[in-house]
Every structure is written in C-alpha cells, then in structure tokens.
C-alpha cells in the first residue's frame, strides 16, 4: 500500500491539473505560487507536458492561451501581483474565450509575508467577469483544479483559481481520482472569436455579459458552494469563503451552530445569499483578503432590517491575514491565552542576504562610490537584493514592483537628480527591465544601471533565469547602448576598491551606463 503523503496546497493543485489532462503548465516564480510548477517541471517530460518558467507572467499567460486556442488544456501560475503583469492577456482572454481548458492559478499573499501588497484576486476575476474557484483545503484544491478545467472547456472560458499563502504553503493529504487524458487533437483556430478586433470584441463582450446569468446559476448549483440552513438559531448567519472556513470551524470546535453559506465558487451565488439573509437577523461575513463578498452584499445602502458584519464595520481588520484567533474573536468566542512572561530583550530578525552573497559585495562597492556625493538616489527592484534596504547596507532608497528600477531612475534623472542608480537582478531584468533600458538608451538618460547577475532567480529558490552571463551582456549591448559604458565586474570583497572606482567613473559619465556584476548565487 502506498503511504499517504503530505502535500503543499500548491502541489495538490498541480496534481489536480496533471490529472485533468493538461498539456502545458507555464508560470513565473513568485511566492506563494512557485511550488506549483516546481512540482510539475521535473515530471513534465515523463508526463508529456510542456512546463517551464517563462520570462514573465504575461508571456506565461500567452503561452497558456496559445496552447488552449488550438485545443489543448493548460494552466498558468503566478503570484497575485504577477497577474498585474499578465493583466492585458488576462482581460482579453475573457473576451476571446478558449478552446482547450485554461486555468489561471493565482496565489494571493494576505499579510504580505513575501509581497508588496495584499490585493485580492477575486476582485480581478470579477473585473474580468470570469468564474473563480477558491479552495478551503488540499482536497478542494485538487478537486477544483480538475472541475475548473472541465468547466473551462464546457464554457470555452478561462477560469481563475485563487489560492492564499496559508493554503499554498500548508501541507495536507489528498485522495486522488483516475486521471483524464490530454486532449488528443490540435483544433482549428476560431479566428472570429480569437481575433480581438473591435468588430469581434463587441460581439464577444456582449456574449460574455449574457453568459453571466449562466455563471450565476452554476455558482448556485455548484457542489463547492454549500448552503446549510439546518441550525435553528435565527439570530445569526455566517457567510464564509476559502481558508476562513477552516478558522470558523476551528472556532466552533467543528460544527457551525448557525445557518451558514460556504462560498468556494464565484460569481457570488446570489440566490444562496438571499435565502440565508432572509432567514437570519444578522450576517457575519468571514473572508480572507478584501471584503469582496461583504461589499457586494452591503452595497451602498446596506440590507434593510439586517445587520451585516465583516471587515467594513470593523468586526475584522481590513489589513493583514485572518487567523483562528481573529476569526474566533470576531464571532464572539474567547480563546484563553496564558500570559507568559515576555522576553527581556527581543530584537526582530528580518531576512538578510546570505553570508558570502555576491549582492553584498556589489552594495559595498556602490555605497563606497556614492559616499562622495550629496545625493543617494538608488532605485531598487524586486529580488533578494531588495534586502539591501536594511542595515548594514541601507543601499536601496525605493522599490516599486518588478522591473521598475530603470524607469524610475530615468524619471528621477530627468527631474534633475544626480547621481541616479538603478539596481536589479538578472531575472528581473529579463522579466521587465529590458524595456526600461531601451527607454534609458533612447533618452540618453544619465543613469547607472546595476544588473546583479547571480545566474539564477534567487529569492524564490533558484529557478532558471531567462538570460545570464554572456547572453545577458549581449542582450544589454543589443539595446544600442555605447559598449564602452557596459562594464562587467566580479563582486568579491577583494575587488571592492576597484569596483567602486569603475562605478565612480560611470557615475561621472553623462549618459546611460550598465554595470553588470557577475557572480553565481551561493545557494546554487
């Protein structure tokens, strides 16, 4: 007998997708979504599935769309902010629809464990008018991956699955079902539907609007949405979604003693909501993330004669992650916490660059070079090197999102700031820094762009990076930048002085420079 195995929520989704018969699985690494493809990629060849890390989320999404347009099933994975990068194909694909099933698996990070915001993908699914699945546990993650890919083919529409950190990175056991085969044939392109000329898009958009009532019906009939009116209490009802369901059950010790609605499939099943609200005086909405359900229920004027509680009336916080204690407290259940004597002295322990990290040597040289100037304008980016913000470096003064360092540096330079530096890694550069660099070169902007090439995508655990080493240098030269101002350095403690000198030279040069620091991540 095979022993049961504990799987991450991410892995449960991956297995569900494989068992649904996908032919392609694409994505860009991002916590907490990374482990979905980490699970699939090593097995891809044996499974006959195409799976790899794309250059960015937009490309990943387009790969999945292409596969699906010709009739094969595919998934695309990314973190919540990755969907912002893929927003363009995402929005358009809701109009074109698909042929083979397409599931976009988006992992949100409430509490910002490893992210710059806590945007809620359910709101973006609604924006695109697409169905969204939100599993509560590992079994649902597996089941919903399969069900949503079937539904996608049935509706010829992309489907969204929203995960959150606590499910993506929690381990649990699942029961699997026999796998479905991959779609065998490549189908003819539906050129009218798939070409987003206005003449087609208008028709597709009105079809999508018409489809909404069917999506509503499906949500109401969905086995994943459960309305339970069996409790006798008429005072309070509970609406709960996703992972919050586990916390609500925990708070009540298993059985919920109120009438409740558990939502795992969107659009929000309105008929269920109406039935529940009619049966009780007060409704408590417990959802992880934005008050998506609560807002639609409350509207601008509330529900006459009923009390709605949730994030908008302060029962729960608008920010941060739900926890079992927060949920219990909001439901009026007290959990006794012993008051252990606190430690005398408990300093924080933020993440830090590893000992021997090449980024540290790059930052030391940079700080040395900048020490002679009044201004310190260093525009950082997303990656391990964002940690250069902290002591002892304090090297980073701004960080917005993936690839932003170069564009911001050009803008600041045009405002008159000097010297101006942008810092980003190899994978972030190919993700979305390259376009900014072309702008910098065309504008002859007086900026110094440091590309920290450590040969990998470090922060997410060392995924293949799209362009490193010599190829990266050629890519930079391909922008038309003056090759005398493309400098390649080796970030080592012994080279600190020499590297600072080179940086200083490039700072003094008026025009765009790219300084590439090449040394592999010590973790690979």
């Amino acid at each position, binding site marked *: 007998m095979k*022993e*049961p*195995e*504990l799987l991450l929520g991410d892995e449960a989704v991956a297995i569900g997708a494989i068992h649904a018969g996908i032919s392609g699985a694409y994505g860009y690494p991002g*916590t*907490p979504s*990374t*482990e979905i493809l980490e699970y699939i990629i090593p097995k891809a060849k044996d499974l006959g599935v195409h799976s790899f890390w794309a250059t960015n989320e937009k490309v990943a999404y387009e790969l999945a769309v292409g596969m699906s347009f010709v009739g094969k099933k595919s998934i695309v994975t990314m973190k919540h902010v990755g969907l912002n990068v893929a927003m363009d194909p995402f929005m358009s694909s809701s109009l074109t629809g698909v042929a083979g099933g397409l599931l976009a698996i988006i992992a949100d990070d409430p509490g910002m*464990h*490893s992210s710059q915001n806590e945007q809620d993908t359910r709101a973006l699914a609604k924006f695109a008018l697409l169905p969204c699945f939100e599993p509560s546990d590992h079994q649902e993650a597996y089941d919903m991956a399969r069900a949503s890919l079937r539904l996608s083919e049935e509706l010829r529409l992309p489907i969204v699955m929203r995960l959150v950190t*606590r*499910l993506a*990175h*929690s*381990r*649990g*056991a699942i029961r699997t079902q026999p796998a479905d085969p991959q779609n065998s044939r490549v189908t003819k392109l539906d050129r009218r539907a798939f070409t987003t000329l206005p003449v087609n898009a208008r028709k597709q958009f009105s079809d999508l609007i018409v489809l909404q009532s069917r999506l509503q019906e499906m949500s109401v009939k969905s086995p994943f949405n459960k309305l339970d009116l069996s409790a006798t209490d008429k005072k309070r009802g509970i609406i709960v979604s996703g*992972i919050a369901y*586990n*916390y609500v*059950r*925990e708070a009540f010790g*298993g059985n919920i003693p109120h009438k409740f609605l558990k939502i795992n499939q969107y659009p929000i099943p309105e008929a269920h909501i109406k039935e529940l609200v009619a049966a009780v005086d007060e409704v408590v909405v417990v959802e992880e993330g934005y008050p998506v359900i609560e807002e639609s229920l409350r509207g601008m004027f509330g529900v006459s004669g009923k009390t709605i509680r949730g994030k908008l009336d302060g029962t729960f916080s608008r920010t941060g992650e739900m*926890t*079992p*204690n927060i949920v*219990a407290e909001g439901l009026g259940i007290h*959990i*006794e*916490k*012993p008051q*252990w*004597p*606190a*430690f*005398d*002295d*408990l*300093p*924080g*322990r*933020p*993440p*830090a*660059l*590893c000992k021997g990290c090449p980024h540290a040597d790059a930052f030391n040289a940079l700080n040395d070079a900048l020490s002679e100037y009044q201004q310190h304008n260093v525009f950082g980016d997303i990656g*391990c090197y964002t*940690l250069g913000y902290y*002591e*002892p470096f304090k090297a980073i003064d701004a960080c917005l999102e993936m690839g932003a360092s170069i564009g911001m540096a050009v803008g600041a330079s045009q405002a008159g700031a000097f010297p101006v530096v942008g810092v980003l890694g190899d994978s972030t550069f190919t993700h979305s820094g390259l376009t900014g660099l072309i702008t910098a070169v065309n504008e002859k902007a007086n900026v110094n762009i440091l590309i920290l090439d450590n040969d990998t995508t470090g*922060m*997410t*655990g060392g995924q293949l990076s799209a362009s490193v080493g010599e190829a990266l240098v050629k890519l930079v030269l391909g922008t038309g930048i003056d090759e005398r101002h493309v400098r390649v350095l080796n970030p080592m403690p012994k080279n600190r002085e020499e590297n600072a000198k080179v940086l200083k030279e490039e700072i003094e040069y008026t025009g765009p420079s790219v300084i590439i620091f090449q040394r592999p991540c010590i973790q690979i």
Partner: protein
Amino acid sequence: MKLDLILSGVGGQGILSIAFLVDTAALRRNLFVKQAEVHGMSQRGGSVYSHLRVSPQPVMSDLIPEGRGDMILSLEPLEVGRYLSYLDKNGVIISNSVPFANIPNYPSEESIYRSLFRLGKVVLVDAKAIAMKAGAPLAQNVAMLGAAIPYLPFEQSDFTRTIEEMFARKGERIVKANLQALEFGSRVGFFYKGLLDAGILAQNVFHVVRSLDPASIDISQVSPFANRLKERGEGLLTAAIGENLSCSVTSLASIM
C-alpha cells in the same frame, strides 16, 4: 492524541526537515496532519516557524490558535520568545541553547536563558554539542527532535526509518550520524526530564546536563544521579551558577 507543535528557528536551520519527520511519523500511525510553513523571503536568515497539527480527527485550521500549542520546539533560544502567545498553559518548551546571532543587537546568552527559565516547563539543550558528538555538525535539528521525544507522542523508532530514507543520498556516514544525533538527543532529553521530574531546579538541570557527555549518558542512572545531586550538590551548584563560575559547575557536575 492531539499534538499542536510550533517549530521555530532561523531560515536555513532545518525546521522543515524535522517537520517532515514528525509528519511522516504521524501519517504512519494513521493520524491526520496539517502543517503550515514559511517559504520565500524570510527563509533568507530571518525568523521562520511552522505550525504542525496532529490529530485523530481531521484537522480544521492550518494555523494553531494562540494559546493552544502543546509544545514550542525551537532550534534557536531567542526565537522561542516570538511564539509564546501560541503556547497553552500546560505547554512545554524544548529549545536549543546555542544562539544563532546573525543580527547586530543580539542579546546576551544570560539574558535569554533568564527569560527562558521564567517560563515554566523549559528544556534547554546544547544541540551543537550533541550534533558534534554524533559526527554531523549540521544535525542540530535532528538532535533537538531527539531531545523532544520524551514530551512527544512518538518514539525514537517512529523517526529512524524516515531519517534513513531522507539522508540516504548523502551517504552511509551522514545517515549514521543523524541516527546517532537522534539517539544522543533522546538520551539527553530523557535524562533532562528525569532530573526535572525529580524536582531539580531548571537552571541546575540545564548546567548539569550540559556538562555531561551525551554519548555516555545512562538513562537508568537518572534517579540515583538526581538523589546525589539533591543530597550533596545542588546548593553548591546553585551558588556556583549564581557566581557564574562555569568551571566549578562543570567540575561539580562531573563528580556527581
């Protein structure tokens, strides 16, 4: 049998490996398990933790509610301080005594130990010494799991097969060293518990056990050892510790 275990440490110390060992032991006993862990940014030398929940019934919340934890098992002494709100009033703390001081304002060892000994049921063991003795300096995590065995609903044998499988690809020597670390850790843990149960002051137990060679601890000798300690040595020991005379502590402990 329910176990709500908080594992803590610093990114890179190997808490996920011991989580895996406990998970597997529980699954092999047909128990239900959920385990929440931290990936991403914090893994780079920051504070990391894992919530591990074992139960005969399906586990509901992936996170342990504050105030419900049965044990904090920490690979680093300072990190214990971050998770106290999770510990039940009858909870136990098992911690490595060896600091991982990768921050500039790391407090003194004495101040950390003082804070720890104010907490009630605390087992503080030198996992580094145990791992070194076992021949694998990196096996501090497995040594700590060993030290926790007296307070866990599992036995040493629940972990051995998984350790063999886990380290197989690193070669026979590493497998053996990790099994040894588990064994020595377990001996230290049982001896420690024996002395605590005999009513020896927690600080004294820590200093005495730390002075012993983990490889030569004989658990059957814990009662007579405790008696000798109570009859003759404890007053002296307390005085010596009070004056921070570590050499006296060591020599006192060795003549017990």
